[in-house]
């Protein structure tokens, strides 16, 4: 239940951010229905909101989506599904479903499968309902700055980032990335610094620690 409430809030935040970026309510809902991977969706609308090019928006979303491919590699041998069920499984392969499934490992493969399908489906339902509510809400509010929506979006990114900073090294990566992003902002077209900052990840991840 607490997972559902958290997902709901992220969904509201996404719907609002998407509308604030200039997408329609329908487009915002399609993002959540068809992309269904929160960080990528936030990144795409975030780049659009900051005036970035279409290619930068899509590239940022795809880069954040690569981890779902790695989750799929982990989940496929556990789920062992084919055909339509494999396509459905792929669509709900996200942080939460994979995380819950892997946490059920001590209880056996049946519990892992149940954890994956229940979490993935549950998050899908909540994420989409709350995206719609957030999008409608933001549309009703009007000027984003007047309601603090323009600060809610970076705060949401910070909230997405925060739980990932589990070691000092990862905190260093975050601080270096932010500093790098600020430094290159005046020199690149809008939106591109977001993509360019991935060189920090490549540079610091190149060597084993």
């Amino acid at each position, binding site marked *: 239940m607490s997972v559902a409430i958290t997902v709901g809030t992220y969904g509201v935040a996404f719907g609002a951010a998407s509308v604030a970026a200039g997408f329609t309510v329908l487009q915002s809902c399609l993002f959540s229905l068809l992309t269904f991977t929160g960080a990528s969706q*936030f990144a795409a609308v975030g780049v659009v909101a900051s005036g970035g090019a279409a290619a930068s928006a899509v590239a940022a979303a795809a880069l954040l989506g690569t981890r*779902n491919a790695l989750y799929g590699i982990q989940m496929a041998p556990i789920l062992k599904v084919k055909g339509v069920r494999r396509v459905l499984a792929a669509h709900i392969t996200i942080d939460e479903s994979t995380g819950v499934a892997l946490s059920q490992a001590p209880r056996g493969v049946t519990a892992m499968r149940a954890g994956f399908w229940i979490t993935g489906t549950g998050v899908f339902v909540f994420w989409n309902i709350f995206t719609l509510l957030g999008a409608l809400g933001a549309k009703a509010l009007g000027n984003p700055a007047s309601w603090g929506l323009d600060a809610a979006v970076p*705060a949401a990114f910070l*909230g997405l*980032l925060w739980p990932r900073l589990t070691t000092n090294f990862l905190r260093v990566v975050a601080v270096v*990335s932010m500093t790098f*992003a600020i430094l290159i902002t005046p020199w690149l077209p809008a939106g591109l610094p977001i993509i360019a900052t991935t060189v920090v990840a490549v540079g610091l991840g*190149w060597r084993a620690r």
Partner: protein
Amino acid sequence: MSTTVMWIVLAATCVLCFSLKLLGHLVPEPWLANPRLQRINALIPISLLSALVVAQGVVVKTHVVIDHRLAGLAVALAALFAKAPFPVVVVAAAATSALVYHLH
């Protein structure tokens, strides 16, 4: 950005992100399990989210701008340090930012 371009962003994002998910389920050999690739892949979300905080919090187009949003971000940071749940963090940031915006 024109309406057409926004539809293209939406469609391309949907197709690419779904393809990545499906790719993971279809790749038979764990050839993406290269340790270096895994390390970099684990850091990419951190770098991208950090850059997005900057781009949305202190940037207007190609300029670094300090305004009401930074006040909101500072409150969000304090709330996260105080282990506040996500909704509290976002609402506190929005309320602070809106307040500073209207005071100016």
